[in-house]
């Protein structure tokens, strides 16, 4: 059965609550290598998403992703707004004529492509793409396997941790050059938190 609006609503609620719960952690990471606003920006954006939860649950899934994307674009207030917003807008766009979970790898890939285009960035530059790209590759290679959810969780955690030794060449952290080494990238961490929340929800779905 394709992903139902009510299931998406449950997932979005969990993801939003988890990222809001991590506000202080994301702020601390961003104070180390950015401008310290990632936690509060994500909190504001995902609180706005929570405010639209009923509308999200009442829309067809593709439109619901567009609503999430537009809400983040309009409310986050930092670069992460257009970056995460573009992800969800592109996912919504890609879902026309496709469905979840069958086309998950393609649809997720469209979202990752939009983040890469918006940030003019690739994996390896100490950004959220360093989590999103390995997860995208996993989804493509391990589609349909029974332990996929657990592997997404593990891949996201390892990938986020692996941003610590990287030197930033994109975003605000690039100004720091070698001083960005040793800190986990805040965008990679928030991507990991969101993916974990989705995995947790998937495991609990009936």
């Amino acid at each position, binding site marked *: 059965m394709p992903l139902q609006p009510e299931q998406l609503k449950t997932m979005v609620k969990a993801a939003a609550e988890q990222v809001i719960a991590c506000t202080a952690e994301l702020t601390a990471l961003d104070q180390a290598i950015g401008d310290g*606003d990632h936690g509060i920006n994500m909190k504001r954006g995902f609180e706005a998403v929570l405010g639209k939860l009923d509308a999200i649950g009442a829309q067809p899934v593709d439109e619901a992703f567009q609503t999430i994307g537009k809400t983040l*674009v*309009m409310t986050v207030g930092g670069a992460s707004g*257009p970056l995460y*917003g573009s992800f969800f807008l592109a996912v919504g766009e890609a879902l026309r004529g496709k469905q979840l979970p069958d086309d998950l790898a393609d649809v997720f890939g469209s979202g990752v492509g939009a983040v890469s285009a*918006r940030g003019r960035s690739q994996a390896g530059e100490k950004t959220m793409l360093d989590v999103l790209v390995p997860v995208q590759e996993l989804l493509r290679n391990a589609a349909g396997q029974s332990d996929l959810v657990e592997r997404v969780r593990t891949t996201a955690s390892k990938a986020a941790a692996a941003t610590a030794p990287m030197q930033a060449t994109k975003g605000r952290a690039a100004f720091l050059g070698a001083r960005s080494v040793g800190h986990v990238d805040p965008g990679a961490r928030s991507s990991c938190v969101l993916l974990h929340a989705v995995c947790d929800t998937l495991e609990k779905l009936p």
Partner: protein
Amino acid sequence: MNDMVGIVIVSHSKDIAKGTADMVRQMVGSEVKVAFCGGDPDGGLGTNVSLIIDAINAAWSPKGVAILVDLGGAETNSEMAVEMLQPERQGLVVVCNAPIVEGAVMAATEAAGGSSLDEVRAVAEELSAS
């Protein structure tokens, strides 16, 4: 034709955006439409797509609008704002790769002479030639 390219200033700080706009008005005059915005949706430091869209529309000219930004998020949010404009306006707005204060003054000076959007952008971007 008296239309002049409009100028939009987008800073993380409303004070910087306003101060830059004040400098443009004093140095170039008020013939060129200048709009500015700064701050996140809660009034803190940051940028905000919906305020940028409002500023573009406020500075709108049939010849187009040049946007000057300060740091990364201002650029990303400005590009996002351009994509959310009505389709017929999207091709008439550019985000200049130029320092915000000098770029705004130079762009407005060029715009006041009736130059095209490409010319205005080129003059602003000469400032960041490496």
